[in-house]
């Protein structure tokens, strides 16, 4: 048994957690190095065969070309060496060059797609978290408005429908019938990107439907799990005292009930934010939205080792770091969680 939470145990605890973070990053990087290679596919050959095939070529000399490119990418090296270099490069944030987008740098590709994903999924996730959590909490709140009793099941109905279907439906309604919103894309064809209000408005308009479809479909899920926690919390004695104190309903709701029920939701939120960097392939595809999900998808389709690794590395860092922070601040989110040293 450890030394139950010394004031001076803190730095040690943080250090240990950081150590674990390093371990997670290393293990995850290794795993994601190995996984694509388990497919036994050769992305270089695939890309080249594709390129040559499309040009009506006869694939003469393809082996030679493949070999030349393999050398370029260091794929002729023994696997352990490749592994070593991958990890070493990753440490230096040098993610190398993409095979399928050769000779584009992985980092360029990722950084180009990242803002789109962050803007779309970041806001959609945040909003669906807020709305869903509030709704879910409110459904089991005794004095909540009546309409919630049928509204939340309705939201659940939406959660049952895959969000890409909702997306398609939105397009048919708002774009094809009503012609209110553009059917997709990051901005309208021909618009020249720039730092202007009109461009920001464009982006906003274009992100409305994809965001709405994610929002509509995920609110119910957030609501559901929040609801579950709220039920438990409502039985607590502090809710009785809160009432006896004559607190306003909103304060009892937010500061007492929701505040106590929210820890697992926050965990989920952190995970969801981590997942922003994997993007939402299907939404991106349906709305022609240029995010990371699609990039990763394209990378996976041809098992572009380097691009996969680049995308996943971003994921590793976001998930690893955000979970570490989360672990460290759990005692702040809920002080009952004892700040304990591991081991």
């Amino acid at each position: 048994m450890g030394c139950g939470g010394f004031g001076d145990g803190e730095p040690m605890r943080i250090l240990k957690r950081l150590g674990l973070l390093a371990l997670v990053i290393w293990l995850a990087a290794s795993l994601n190095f190995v996984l694509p290679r388990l497919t036994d596919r050769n992305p270089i050959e695939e890309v080249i065969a594709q390129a040559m095939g499309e040009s009506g070529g006869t694939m003469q000399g393809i082996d030679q070309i493949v070999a030349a490119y393999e050398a370029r990418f260091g794929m002729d090296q023994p696997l352990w060496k490749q592994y070593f270099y991958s990890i070493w490069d990753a440490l230096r944030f040098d993610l190398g060059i993409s095979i399928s987008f050769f000779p584009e740098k992985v980092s360029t590709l990722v950084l180009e797609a990242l803002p789109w994903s962050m803007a779309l999924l970041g806001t959609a996730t945040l909003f669906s978290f807020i709305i869903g959590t509030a709704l879910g909490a409110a459904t089991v709140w005794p004095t909540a408005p009546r309409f919630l009793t049928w509204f939340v099941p309705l939201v659940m109905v939406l959660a049952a429908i895959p969000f890409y279907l909702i997306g398609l439906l939105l397009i048919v309604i708002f774009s094809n019938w009503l012609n209110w919103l553009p059917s997709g894309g990051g901005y309208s064809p021909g618009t020249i990107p720039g730092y202007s209000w009109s461009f920001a408005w464009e982006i906003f308009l274009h992100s409305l439907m994809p965001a709405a479809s994610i929002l509509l479909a995920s609110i119910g899920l957030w609501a559901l799990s929040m609801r579950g926690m709220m039920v438990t919390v409502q039985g607590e004695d502090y809710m009785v005292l809160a009432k006896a104190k004559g607190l306003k309903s909103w304060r009892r709701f937010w500061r007492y009930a929701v505040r106590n029920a929210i820890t697992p939701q926050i965990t989920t939120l952190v995970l969801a934010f981590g997942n922003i960097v994997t993007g939402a392939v299907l939404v991106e595809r349906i709305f022609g939205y240029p995010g990371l999900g699609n990039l990763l998808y394209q990378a996976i389709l041809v098992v572009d080792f380097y691009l996969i690794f680049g995308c996943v590395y971003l994921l590793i860092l976001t998930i690893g770091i955000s979970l570490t922070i989360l672990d460290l601040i759990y005692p702040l989110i809920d002080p009952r969680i004892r700040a304990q040293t591991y081991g």
Partner: protein
Amino acid sequence: SAQSIKDVPRERTLVQMGWSQGAPTLKTPRNANYYNLAGEYRNGHMHHFEPLFFFNNFTGEVIPWLAESFEMSEDNTSVTVHLRDGAKWSDGEAFDAEDVAFTYNMLLENGRGTGDMRKSVEVATQVDSVEVIDPLTVKVNLAGPDPRYPFRQLINYFGHGLVWVPEHIWKDVEDPATFTWYDEEKGWPIGTGAWKAVSAAPEQIILDRRDDWWGAEAGFRDLPAVERIVSIPASDNTRMAELMINNEADATMSMSSPALVERALAQNEALTTFTGNEPPLGNMDWWPHALYFNHAIEDSPFQDKRVREAVRFAIDRQQIIDFAWDGANTPNPWPYPAYAPLVKYMEASEDIVEKHRAAEHNLDETARLMEEAGYEMSDDGLWEKEGECVGGPIETHQNLAGIGQIIVQQLINAGFCAEFSQTPESFDKFRNGESVWHIFGHNGGSVFDPVDTLRMYTTPNVMPIGTSTMFVARWSHPEIDRLVAEMQTIPPENFDEILPLFREAMDIWFGEVVEVPIEQAYHLVPMNTTYWTNWPSEDNPYTPPCISCFISGWGSYLPHNLVPAQS
């Protein structure tokens, strides 16, 4: 540089779609190097470049562009090309024989060496050397006699033809295979085309008309009316349809759902297609679809010709077309597209199809053949020998999933244990010979005479399993080797000379049941007449309507011909 981009009204802008393989982004927007293997030239950058000749595959007409003419030597071992006077690169340098020779030599060197540039190996196998005769004349010495050589590398259509690079810049490029040829600061890429990129991102590439385009200056052609081309990612069928319905785009990439095209036409009256509102709502493409057997797998049940024939009888082409095309396609027992020059050959050989009953659907025949081959019908309704059924996953090309499912079901109904398979790996699997049977098209086949398709069934083009190839039957025949060798020496226009050879080869081909051709391929490309008219159509078939479908083909030819709908 974003600030310096001028405003162009929508009615002078052409919004077209670039190749994106279903993705919502353009591939490699900042890579305009056609010869880079991962570079995607069809994303919009093709408008920078012009070929020596275009080709009208519908009429067989060769359209001179950067060049005025070519002639083949008597013995078919060299071609002399006469370039047009006054052609210029966008930086003002003249486009001349040196540039053509430089491009050739670069490819020859690469093709003989690492071979990691697009088409370099192909060029190196077909070309021996290049001579600059004078600034406007260049002579290409071939590796052997080949009357069709111009149609392989000098004339641009479908996947054929080369893209020229300016010697004065590329001579300093260290590694042309990885060179990206894009730099807004330096004004790269430098092409001869009438449009030039002003901005390139995965979301769109914007190309503006150069008012100093050489063609107008030299009096070759008027300046095109299209002042700006915006190339956006095509994404998938549904999205293409939506963009068209909402007037957000002027032309699509090739769509694979006739129903969706029909729907789009119904929703937006301004839309039209190559065949107007009539089926098949598109133009015929060069790769008729077929069910292939992989002949290289030695223990495959399809090594037995009777089994292959049983499969052929099991296929009901009309039903496929009824389901997948609402009837708007033509059953096709041939491995050829029905282009006028080829139709002549096929019409003259109908009797061979009859003889081999190659177009017939007859399940009784299937049963007879299977029993003959020693199979028995199991309780599950499958043909079995020693407990093994005949079939396995049919790897299907992504554009052919629609017919794929139907073919699979027909085969299942006929007693074959077929499984539908369309995964990201499918293409790779059958290219590498890892699948038993697959659904694909005759990519790289004939357009104007039968040789190119028949070449697919010659010994040099049969790749061992594990080596990637587009000729996925992996089948050859010594007689066909011989016949093709003979045909290759005959100029394509000599129909009478080629026909008997063709008939002989096809007799063997049908007799051996090499594969089961299914249907014609169509490019379904809705075009929007709100801003632009004079789109290519059946009545005015000046070029295929799909602007970005082809790896080397027409590219900028179509925009040159567009006429504004609103003045």
